[in-house]
């Protein structure tokens, strides 16, 4: 590809991109830094950058005070569980929309996506009451259902964009070859859509992992994931920045690592329909 940009334009773009990148990254950097400070240094003004006494005591204390692995386990179960359930529904839904479109398919897609624009707090009370009546409060199953429904529109949308790129002929060939619908999807469609499915799953795991509204409102202890773990350090005992930072660092570390290693896949997946 020919690069028509002038060196000056190129440099200023790079500088700008770096500034934006650093701005976004700074809070996470600061959080990690703070987690290694003592509580006193954490709130000192002016803040100290590198020249402080590095300590691991926050991590030790956080580990002693609460069971990190229980929360982490719940986060994994909720994120992976809601993604797998979502995949079953999203694949079938996107298959129908991409390969058997009707006049209103586009509208239906937009409508599904528009539900994401509604503030979740608007349905908090009804959902809370339903959960209470059905005994779903603080259960993993209930949370998986909520997270799966919450992210379903995005999964359908992403898979739809991917499936659209797959020639219908190939699915018809499978049909002529005697494949039943489930076999057509499992042996032909899914293998061809692996990159799209992988990025959809990744994004969904990240979204579910980071989701804090429903997880905080609908859990107390049994099903509480890492978001609740962080929250437990922010309220009752006043503000302990260093310990809060340590807890947060522990909570975001796994997903950051996953995100880092899969960033190529993610970017490709998210920009799929757009570029190409």
């Amino acid at each position, binding site marked *: 590809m020919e690069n028509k940009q002038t060196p000056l334009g190129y440099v200023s773009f790079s500088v700008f991109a770096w500034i934006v990148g650093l701005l976004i990254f700074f809070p996470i950097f600061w959080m990690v830094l703070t987690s290694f400070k003592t509580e006193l240094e954490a709130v000192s003004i002016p803040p100290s950058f590198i020249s402080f006494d590095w300590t691991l005591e926050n991590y030790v204390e956080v580990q002693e005070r609460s069971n990190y692995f229980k929360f982490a386990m719940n986060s994994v179960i909720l994120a992976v569980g809601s993604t797998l359930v979502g995949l079953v529904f999203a694949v079938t839904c996107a298959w129908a929309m991409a390969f058997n479109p009707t006049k209103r398919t586009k509208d239906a897609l937009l409508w599904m996506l528009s539900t994401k624009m509604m503030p979740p707090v608007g349905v908090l009370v009804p959902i809370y009451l339903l959960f209470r009546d059905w005994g779903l409060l603080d259960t993993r199953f209930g949370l998986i259902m909520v997270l799966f429904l919450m992210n379903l529109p995005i999964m359908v949308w992403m898979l739809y964009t991917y499936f659209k790129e797959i020639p219908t002929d190939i699915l*018809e*060939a*499978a049909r*002529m*070859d*005697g*494949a039943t619908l489930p076999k057509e999807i499992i042996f032909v469609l899914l293998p*061809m859509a692996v990159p799209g499915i992988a990025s959809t799953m990744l994004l969904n795991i990240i979204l579910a992992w980071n989701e804090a509204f429903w997880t905080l409102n609908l859990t107390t202890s049994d099903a509480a994931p890492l978001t609740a773990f962080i929250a437990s350090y922010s309220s009752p005992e006043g503000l302990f920045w260093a310990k809060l930072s340590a807890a947060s660092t522990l909570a975001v570390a796994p997903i950051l690592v996953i995100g880092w290693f899969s960033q190529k896949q993610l970017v490709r997946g998210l920009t799929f329909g757009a570029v190409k």
Partner: protein
Amino acid sequence: MGAIRLEKVKKTFGTLDVIPGVDLDINDGEFVVFVGPSGCGKSTLLRLIAGLEDVTDGKILINGTDVANEAPAKRGLSMVFQSYALYPHMTVYNNIAFGLKMAGESKEVIEEKVQSAAKILNLTDYLERRPSALSGGQRQRVAIGRAIVRNPAAFLFDEPLSNLDAALRVNMRLEITGLHQELKTTMIYVTHDQVEAMTMADKIVVLQAGRVEQVGKPMELYNNPANKFVAGFIGSPKMNFLGGELAQKRDCHEIGIRPEHIAVSTESGEIPATVKIAEHLGAETYLHVEADGLGPMTVRATGEIPLGEHDKIFLTPEQDRIHRFDAHGLALGNS
């Protein structure tokens, strides 16, 4: 065994009446070609037979049983798509084996059938490759291989050669004809190329706007087209249509005369004309001429004819090769 019969088959897309009602008989072992201009419903008709589209109305009988409401797989037909539609994530072997696997055949049977199909189609050396590592012609052969292993009642081809270059197309045309002679299975072949139709078909079905214009052997259509549309569609270069005095003299609205049935003379003849363009191909010469008072005509003369632009010539149609048409374009019996 694969005799196929269409009874009043209708297809509409919303309000668009694509196939208003087709009746057709295809005998077991026949090579039938659907031809017609783009958008006339050839693919739709084929897909109706395949079961990839649902009929709006009518019956599709395969060996006497109505399959109009059966799933494609139940009909026992194989299809070769214009785009080849190979499974990109599978090797050639697995592409060919897929249908057999779906049918629950044993490993040994699959191995044997795939190997024998590969042998027929010269694919033995490519079985472990992915389709992306094959040439267009090889991909086409894989698509055919995938169709033949299932031992179908009939093969359906939708413009299988239109993505290939001219030389390869001639080759594959011969291969498919050879395959038909070997397998003796019913084949339905869609094309808009009338040369393919003429050379391959036992029976040609000419379609226009979803209607069957004429069904017949290639030479029947060539010699006795039922109407102006078929007359103009079959044969290349196209038949010349002339009205006016020449037609009145023969008691009809218009006459048609094929370019190869016109004698050329520089001295005398029925129609005086002026050469506009002469195309010299060596074995034959195409003359695009302006006939006095009649308009443009095409003449196809055998051998090399030393004529060029502005030359005055005389044309004489072979009298028993003249086709007569009435005002509706229907053919009148030879006079």
